[in-house]
């Protein structure tokens, strides 16, 4: 039995929004989220009942984010390699600094970090999105996290242990 799409939005909407905010920055995140869920809704009847819905959504979000990055790159002169930073309205300073650090990561590292640490995607699936091996995806995420930790070391705001995603497979 396939749940009504409304349940999919309620269950996974926040995670997908975090992922696209991390990958694209705050300014383009709404567009990416909307493109993702509209495409997902269109394809939903054909999704196998036993599919991992969140991984499927992240796959769509990944492609929609690339579309937006390409469109932005075509528009922007000079070419900006890093996306916009997250919202500055509510975030504490340390969050801003860390979010800036996420935004400044090389694209693959930023994607690997977002897909693994925000959406819990296993590295094997991240590898199919980014190309390359699961080991390379794991390395990209590890390199990204290492950079973020160096940022934290300068401005620590959260030293508490954070559990690894529970549905880790790789």
């Amino acid at each position, binding site marked *: 039995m396939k749940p009504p799409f409304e349940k999919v939005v309620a269950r996974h909407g926040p995670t997908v929004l975090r992922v696209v905010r991390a990958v694209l920055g705050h300014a383009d995140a709404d567009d990416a989220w909307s493109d993702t869920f*509209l495409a997902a809704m269109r394809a939903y009847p054909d999704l196998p009942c036993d599919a991992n819905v969140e991984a499927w959504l992240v796959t769509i979000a990944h492609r929609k984010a690339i579309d937006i990055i390409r469109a932005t790159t075509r528009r922007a002169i000079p070419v900006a390699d890093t996306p916009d930073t997250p919202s500055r309205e509510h*975030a504490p300073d340390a969050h801003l600094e860390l979010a800036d650090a*996420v935004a400044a990561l090389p694209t693959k590292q930023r994607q690997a970090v977002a897909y693994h640490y925000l959406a819990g995607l296993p590295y094997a699936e991240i590898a199919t999105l980014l190309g390359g091996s699961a080991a390379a995806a794991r390395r990209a995420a590890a390199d990204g996290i290492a950079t973020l930790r160096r940022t934290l070391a300068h401005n620590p705001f*959260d030293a508490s242990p954070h559990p690894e995603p529970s549905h880790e497979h790789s």
Partner: protein
Amino acid sequence: MSTVDLTALYPVDGDDITRLHARLAAAADSDDVLDVAYRIVDSPVGPLLIAATPLGLVRLAFGSEGHDAVLQDLSDRISPRVLHAAARLDPVARQLDEYFSGRRHGFEVSLDWQLSKGFRRTVLEHLAVDIGYGTTASYGTLARLSGSPRAVRAVGTTCATNPIPVVVPCHRVVRSDGTLGGYRGGPVAKRALLDLEGVR
């Protein structure tokens, strides 16, 4: 060793999701992928779920039916592309409001009959047209109107499983001995609707 809490870095609040959900509902509607739109409206007989396809109102459900179960059923029988989307249901919601406040005696909304096939659909179409506000008919009368005078039991089943109660007024069908008979929304709701219409 310090760890990076990325989830805290990207806070998502209810307003974000509400805003994006509304945008999705509008885009899905204009892109023809909103197969089933629904919303919940308050009424004197409890919260009612109303659901519409592009063709029209397809389902009205009482709270006692369990709205989650109803949505799952719509997903299974019509399409899983089910989304909470108010706009398509605005005319129905307004007319229900008028009906429950006694200002409206008939509904002018297009109906999607796809959940009722064959004889059941015939029965419900007669019910919608032939038994007016403030009147009642027996199951036998409705069977006769439907062209199958001996199908009284089938008519009873049809009324009990009417997918669009209130708007298709199966509450106006009662037993020939004058007792109310069953109702999808329960006997209390049936009595309340007949009281509203001034039926003693």
